[in-house]
């Protein structure tokens, strides 16, 4: 029924336009006017609109600034955010005047020099001085913008200090997990083939390898048992494929174990393969205020992007590689909640939510996913808690009690002989062993 109504409205609308056009055409035919002859009245009308439009246009812009300017992201809560905001303001000071000036000239001239058959346009094919002027001036302005911008970029992307707090953000459809390095202060090596229910990040330890191998062996045994029964051809094929897949996977994990052993032989205690057991895998994301943090970012499946708007930081999470960003948060979550600007925004939001019968909102720094990643992309978030260094240390101490392989109270000694040594590479890249 509604479909029919919509159709009727659309058809009637088109008919109305058609009738208007017919009437106009007939009248202009009666007056003997040709369609391409633009009448003085038409020219004047458009010229007037050319002058009225910028009023509406600028008015809209100014209204947006007035009505929504205070609803933009509040004060940046990181040192690099403060730099970015300053750079942005600097740019606006150049761009907004240019915006007004060029639009004003455009619409002013368009409205002013309306056609008159008694007048001739000014013959002016070119003017080298003018053209040089508006090539050189933008070039100089852009030079300043480039230098200032690159200067900030360099500060943002420079290497993090060795003392920086390390945390890894791990993305998958559709949530985030954080990993802290544990008591030893070093993030352990990872391999995506070790991922299972107990090891969502694929941390490499001798133990994790054995568990995964056992899991694979069990699945293979089950598949083989199933093959002994009476099965349709398609199912047989599927199981055989599965077994072959499991064999290849097992071969790669055996290879990984070899790489691990070589690495440990080469690097001794420094080998990242020895540092996974005490890592802390958590759904809580904490950072200390006024301390540099190095955030390493990885993905399990597809590209995501770690975006923390209030800190003005963003970096993609790319499967197969580790990306990173550094940041120095300058305001704790608690203090941020008392910043007047934030309090006003929160009060406004809550007034609105109350009217809509929704729950109360308290401010939190949020980590959002900002790269299209599937059906629930729009809700892939995790709060970030910025605390005082003392609170952070206390939280870390508490978290360290639940390490990755923490079920055993004495998880401290490395599970593999640490006297061996090898190249410093956390990724398993050695050639496949031919056997298995």
């Amino acid at each position, binding site marked *: 029924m509604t479909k029919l109504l*919509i159709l009727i409205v659309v058809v009637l609308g088109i008919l109305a336009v058609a009738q208007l056009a017919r009437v106009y055409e007939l009248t202009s035919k009666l007056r003997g006017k040709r369609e391409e002859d633009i009448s003085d009245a038409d020219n004047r009308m458009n010229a007037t609109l050319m002058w009225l439009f910028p009023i509406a*246009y600028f008015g809209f812009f100014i209204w947006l600034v007035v009505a929504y300017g205070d609803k933009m*992201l509040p004060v940046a809560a990181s040192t690099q955010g403060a730099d970015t905001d300053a750079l942005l303001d600097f*740019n606006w000071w150049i761009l907004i005047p240019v915006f007004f000036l060029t639009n004003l000239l455009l619409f002013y001239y368009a409205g002013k020099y309306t056609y008159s058959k008694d007048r001739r346009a000014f013959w*002016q094919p070119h003017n080298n001085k003018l053209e040089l002027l508006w090539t050189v001036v933008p070039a100089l302005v852009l030079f300043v913008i480039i230098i200032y911008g690159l200067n900030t*970029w360099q500060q943002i992307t420079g290497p993090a200090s060795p003392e920086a707090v390390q945390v890894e953000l791990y993305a998958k459809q559709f949530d985030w997990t954080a990993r802290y390095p544990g008591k030893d202060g070093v993030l352990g090596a990872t391999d995506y083939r070790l991922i299972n229910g107990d090891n969502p990040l694929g941390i490499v330890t001798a133990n994790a390898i054995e568990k995964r191998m056992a899991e694979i062996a069990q699945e293979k045994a089950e598949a083989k048992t199933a093959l002994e029964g009476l099965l349709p051809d398609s199912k047989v094929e599927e199981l055989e494929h599965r077994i072959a897949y499991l064999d290849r996977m097992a071969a790669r994990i055996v290879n990984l174990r070899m790489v691990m052993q070589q690495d440990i032989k080469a690097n001794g205690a420094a080998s990242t393969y020895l540092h996974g057991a005490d890592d802390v895998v958590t759904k809580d994301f904490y950072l200390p205020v006024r301390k540099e943090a190095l955030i390493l970012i990885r993905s399990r499946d597809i590209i995501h992007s770690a975006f923390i708007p209030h800190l003005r930081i963003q970096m993609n999470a790319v*499967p197969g590689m580790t990306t990173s960003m550094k940041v120095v948060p300058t305001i704790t979550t608690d203090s941020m909640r008392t910043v007047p600007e934030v309090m006003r925004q929160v009060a406004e939001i809550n007034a609105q939510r109350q009217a809509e019968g929704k729950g109360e909102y308290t401010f939190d720094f949020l980590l959002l996913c900002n790269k299209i990643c599937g059906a629930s992309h729009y809700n892939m*978030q995790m709060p970030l808690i910025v605390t005082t260094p003392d609170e952070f240390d206390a939280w870390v101490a508490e978290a360290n009690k639940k390490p990755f392989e923490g079920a055993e109270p004495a998880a401290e000694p490395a599970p593999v002989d640490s006297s061996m040594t090898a190249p410093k590479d956390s990724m398993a890249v050695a050639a496949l062993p031919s056997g298995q």
Partner: protein
Amino acid sequence: MGATAHAAHAGHDAGHAHHHHEESFISKWVFSQDHKMIGKQFLVTAIFMAWVAVIMSLIFRLQLAWPGEGFAFTNFFLGDKWAPGGVLDSNMYLALVTIHGTIMVFFVLTGGLSGTFANLLIPLQVGARDMASGFINMLSYWFFFLSSVVMLSSLFVEGGPASAGWTIYPPLSALPKAIPGSGTGMTLWLVSMTLFIASSLMGGLNYVVTILNLRTKGMKMTRLPLTIWALFLTAVLGVLSFPVLLSAALLLLLDRSLGTSFYLSDIHLAGEALEQTGGSPILFQHLFWFLGHPEVYIVLLPALGITSEIISTNARKPIFGYRAMIGSILAIGFLSFIVWGHHMFVTGMNPFLGSVFVATTLLIAIPSAVKVFNYITTLWRGNIIFTPGMLFSIGLVATFIAGGLTGIILADSALDIAVHDTYFVVAHFHIVMGMSAIFGMFAGIYHWFPKMYGKMMNTKLGYAHFWITLVCAFGVFFPMHFIGLAGAPRRYYDYTEFPMFDTVIDLNVIVTLFAIVGALGQVIFTYNFFYSVFRGPKAVQNPWKSNTLEWTTPVEHIHGNWPGPIPTVHRWPYDYSKPGKSEDWVSQITPLDHDEEEH
């Protein structure tokens, strides 16, 4: 005019071969090799595709303004599978965003814009009987047509059409388990794009060859209208960059179906570790944007060329700084090849490489500024006639200013971090690329409609169309800057999960209302277009008193364009209001007076 008539009588022999042979219905209307007909075919296909994309945008705009509410409109188009109770499904939301972008960028603003105006104008404005190869030209259209059909058919497959965004970044686009649209839908997308690229290459080569080799006597490169210069550079960009997209698409196809790992590595999805290792998803982005950025100018340059021509004609004043305009087109074309990395500042690329892309990208602002100032100066002390084409050209300059300036923010890598992939970016590229190009396209349609169909479009409806479109263009895209500066990411199905956006998100209602009115404005255009094709008043030969060669051809289309020999060109195309001339225009085929300087 006199010269045309003279030429028409003088050489009956040369024209003879061209317009006296019989044409069947099929060879005239379907598999036509006549560039004018092919141009019209491109245009009508593009108008249809544009409507598909507009309706898609209305559907997702409804969801963004009133999330979770059911709409009969949504249900009408998507049915109960994708819009149960009229509520848009979140996978379908991503699919619509993806296909909206794909259709608008490739099918409307590349195929539609270049396809229409390069075909129509190149032979007519350089003075050629037709394209260098009419047959390849015909193939170019039919590949485009086929590609459109495949793209539209992908809307009806199980799992829905491609949903990984128009940039189809792998691994999302490679793995059907990650998103249902990456199944058959994505395969069809890739097939469609492969056909599209073939079409665009055949077209592009033809355009380049025709412009270089088939110019009439006297048509020096420095006498070419700026439309031709723009279309020439566009074709060169396309020929150089589209093959790279083709290779990117083929490698993706291999990753999807043959288990190669060009773009895939270390992926654990749906409880299973994939076997691909060693590839890089970032490689795809480099390949994609190597096309993707020149593509922005493939879309924009024809619009700028069209505008240059129309502003000069209707200001009755030579385009200011003709050589500077050519220079800036060349500079933009060259620079567009070394800026692609500015789409990838947050992918973890080497910061030094990032710096290089910042510098090259910001340099593009210089030729762009030159163009804007030259347009404004052309209007200054002109004698302006407001044809609908002229209005859209002025509108283009306005959108080019607004979108160009925010480009300076986005090119600055340090700032890009804070606004990357937010609505700020959506606002920027819709204004500078989408709106500018579509304004240029509308300007071109109104201006050359008499040449295409021998009829006139209704001027009053054109005015209504322009003012509605201009107001709505800014009404839709201007507020998006603010949504973006509040930190709201693009491609989110629903923002209600984030109370922090509650206070700006009501802007989405404003945006959607403007979008609906804007779409209704396009109904006026579509009606005006098709009504005028059949019932519009007859056009005269040179309705806008324009200097360029296409207006020396007869109103009725003939094979070979000119009944007699092709006229010789004696001057540049912008002798408007030249001192010492009785009229305020001088056709390019009028010889110079013996003491007259060229310009």
